[in-house]
């Protein structure tokens, strides 16, 4: 049983991303925004398994997360696919200390990318209505999300990367 969990850790952790996404703890937030949880999993997964795997699991994550949110007209899939692909092209760094901060920077960039793509969809949909009213809260959302994602990424991504590597070794 223990061996099974160790070997399948990456898939088991994948299943729990939507649960954390739903949990959405307020005390972890900043200006009402939360870190963009799926990127914490997608970064180590793509770095280990490559661009194509990152792209596929970006699509899978997008499908699940879209089903949990009520905004029928907007989707998170393009952002996550793009992030999964880009993250797969990043090489692992041997310097542990530098690697930690790199994760923060990369996740911040990914969060900015996903947030901007989502924002553009909202803007495009409400083009004729009152987009000028929406601009300020949306930009605030993106910046708060980018900050939080970058802040937590070094802690979570490096741990997940270590665990994914451990689960891939021959037992």
């Amino acid at each position, binding site marked *: 049983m223990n061996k099974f969990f160790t070997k399948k850790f990456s898939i088991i952790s994948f299943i729990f991303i*939507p*649960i954390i996404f*739903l*949990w*959405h703890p*307020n005390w972890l*937030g900043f*200006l*009402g*925004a*939360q870190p963009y949880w799926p990127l914490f999993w997608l970064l180590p997964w793509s770095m280990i398994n490559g661009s194509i795997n990152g792209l*596929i699991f970006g*699509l*899978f994550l997008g*499908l*699940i997360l*879209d*089903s*949990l*949110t*009520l*905004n*029928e*007209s*907007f989707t998170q899939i393009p952002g996550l696919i793009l992030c999964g692909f880009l993250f797969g092209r990043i090489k692992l760094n041997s310097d542990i200390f530098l690697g930690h901060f790199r994760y923060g920077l990369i996740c911040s960039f990914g969060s900015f990318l996903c*947030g901007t793509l*989502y924002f553009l969809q*909202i803007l495009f949909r*409400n083009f004729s*209505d*009152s987009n000028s*009213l*929406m601009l*300020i*809260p*949306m930009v*605030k*959302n993106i910046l*708060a*999300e980018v900050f939080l994602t970058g802040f937590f990424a070094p802690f979570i991504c490096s741990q997940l990367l270590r665990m994914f590597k451990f689960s891939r070794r021959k037992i």
Partner: protein
Amino acid sequence: MLGIRRIPTSRWWHKKKNWQFFAIFLFLVFIRISKGALYKDFYYFISKPFWPGQFQKEIVLESIDQEYLIKLNLLEKDNMRLRRILSLQESSNDEHISAAVISRKTGSWWRQIILNKGSKDGIEIGNIVVGPGGLLGRVTTTSLFTSSVTLITSPESKLGVWVDRIQINGLLVGLGDDLPSLILYSKDADIKVGDFVSSSPASTLLPPNIPIGIVQSIDDTLKSKKTAKILLLAKPHVIDWVQVSKVNI
């Protein structure tokens, strides 16, 4: 003599891994089409030990008393008006279901809450959700054990509202922040900070006179319309118990 034959195992459909990916993809498409019902029900069971306790009900009851006082004033006025107009349609919302909030997204892009009552408890799409203070939103999807509510702060929410003091209808639009915007399509509307906003008697989505909020600031820089920021009476980021009402308009 013999030609070199292609090895059949080299085809993509002979690889087990590709079929596994395809099966996962189909499963995820199923989850997407069912609007995450499986996940929400799973979340219902694992979050059960952390649901808000009974003590919360006392705080909620106090707030409900305050809400009822405001509501009573509105209903009295409304009643007098309706007696004058005998041919008006009757609205009834006598069925209330109490539910606890088990997941909330009140910041960021998604403005929604998930309740611990679903289709098995009689909740239907389009039901209105009221918390201590006033209107929170409308039920958008239901699963067997849970229901998801789009808050009035969501960018997807657009509701007809009524400004009681100046007797005018307006449109309440969610902007993705805590203060939705009231749009009045009349430049001459004499709206003031502190005006009370409730659901519109003309709305086809909501029953009339549900308290919504108070005008916090006014922007009259636009040429053809007036907009105002509305401070909501019900606070979705702190409310743990809500009431779901069926709407028969």
